[in-house]
């Protein structure tokens, strides 16, 4: 029996203890093995209904949750809604009522507003899993990044993890920062000062605006996607300038230790934040992240959805 997990929801990594994070990663180890079987399916969540409710577009996260649910024998319904037709507050409340009427056991929510998953979690008996809320958190992405580092490097404590990009608007960065610090990694954030303000140092990380300074000591380079659809002119210097200053080019990659991992949450903008050659190189674990995402999401669905209500 386990006494290490008792939550029905996963809203973020900020509120989890190091032990809870480690327990998810250990559970994911077990589920990763299921993917190697001839029949990649176990009955752990048989009879449970999962609703993928994605108010913001997403292909890989939604597919990953869907496949994870299939592998656990849960039934899956996908609901998407165009963000424009929804206003916060009343609509979410209505959503909650409707989902309750459908007897959904697990709700996977992606929403453009920070805090939307928490809002629903407090009002629903169902488990609520945050699949990304605004610029707040994307806990399963953070967990799969932690899992991949732990798998490839054997540990997380004392590693130097560098996160490059638009940290200010990135929920992936936030979940990574919370998780990495709890597990004892040393974190450096790199990017233009408009997108990586010094305030982040309050979280216990180092901020740098010069990528060359951190490359030689990095154990992991996590390159965030430049979300050009979200960028506002006053924050962002322009794609060409960004690549010139912060892109992981072939030349810059030569400054890395040979064992340094190169990660990216995808989808990649080849030639912007990372050179094609580097993204496909030996140090890249970008596709392992995708495979591990499935195992981590199975673990999260099992742990949250399996709790008796």
């Amino acid at each position, binding site marked *: 029996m*386990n006494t290490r997990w008792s939550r029905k929801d996963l809203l973020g990594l900020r509120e989890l203890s190091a032990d809870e994070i480690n327990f998810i990663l250990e559970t994911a180890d077990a589920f990763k093995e299921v993917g190697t079987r001839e029949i990649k399916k176990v009955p*752990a969540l048989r009879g*449970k209904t999962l609703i993928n409710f994605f108010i913001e577009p997403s292909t890989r996260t939604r597919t990953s949750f869907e496949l994870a649910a299939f592998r656990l024998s849960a039934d899956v319904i996908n609901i998407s809604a165009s963000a424009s037709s929804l206003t916060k507050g009343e609509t979410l409340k209505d959503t909650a009522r409707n989902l309750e009427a459908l007897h959904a056991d697990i709700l996977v929510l992606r929403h453009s507003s920070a805090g939307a998953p928490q809002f629903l979690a407090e009002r629903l008996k169902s488990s609520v899993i945050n699949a990304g809320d605004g610029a707040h958190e994307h806990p399963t992405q953070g967990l799969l990044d932690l899992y991949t580092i732990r798998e490839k490097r054997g540990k997380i404590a004392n590693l130097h993890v560098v996160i490059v990009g638009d940290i200010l608007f990135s929920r992936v960065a936030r979940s990574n920062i919370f998780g990495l610090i709890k597990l004892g990694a040393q974190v450096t954030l790199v990017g233009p000062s408009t997108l990586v303000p010094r305030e982040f140092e309050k979280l216990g990380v180092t901020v740098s605006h010069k990528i060359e300074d951190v490359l030689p000591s990095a154990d992991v380079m996590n390159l965030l996607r430049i979300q050009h659809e979200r960028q506002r002119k006053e924050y962002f210097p322009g794609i060409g300038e960004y690549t010139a200053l912060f892109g992981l080019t072939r030349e810059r990659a030569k400054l890395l230790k040979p064992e340094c991992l190169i990660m990216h949450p995808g989808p990649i903008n080849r030639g912007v934040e990372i050179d094609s050659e580097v993204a496909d190189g030996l140090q890249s674990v970008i596709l392992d992240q995708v495979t591990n995402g499935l195992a981590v999401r199975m673990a999260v669905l099992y742990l949250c959805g399996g709790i*008796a209500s």
Partner: protein
Amino acid sequence: MKNHQPASAAAPIMDAAAIQRTLKRIAHEIIEQNADLKSVVLAGIPLRGVEIARRIAEFVREIAKIDVGMGVIDVAMHRDDVGTRAQLPVVRASKLPVSLETRTLIVVDDVLFTGRTVRAALDAISSFGRPARVQLAALIDRGHRELPIRADYVGKNLPTAAREQIQVRLQETDGEPDTVWLLKE
């Protein structure tokens, strides 16, 4: 369930020497029943089934000079009572040979009780492939089956009341001297 000190109403049923003798006898029986020992895979159910399988394999090696295959079957994700218990069982990775088709798989557990764990193990095995045959070995058979399941190799038949508990403690898994306890409620 980490009850280190058994309650005062606990009675030792087997000590370390008895357990070893029993496992050695099971090893003999396995050798006798399986002409093609090389096709045998001992697959333990965590935690103690894995350790018991390891010990049986050691005896087989000692007696027949053959290394049988080893595996682990975790049943937690194949149980049929998820969501009905307050606490979720911890899931662990299973490990079985890539090709099972020509193998005799012997499932090994410490205590055979309702048979539900074995049912879950059979379910897990089928997701890995189709072994030529599956057999079952248990250190203790305490009765009270709820499914049509029986063991091929039994260490000790121990008739119990439903409210009693059997606790197996092994040095490697529990850090305590090898003992089988009967706990009267």
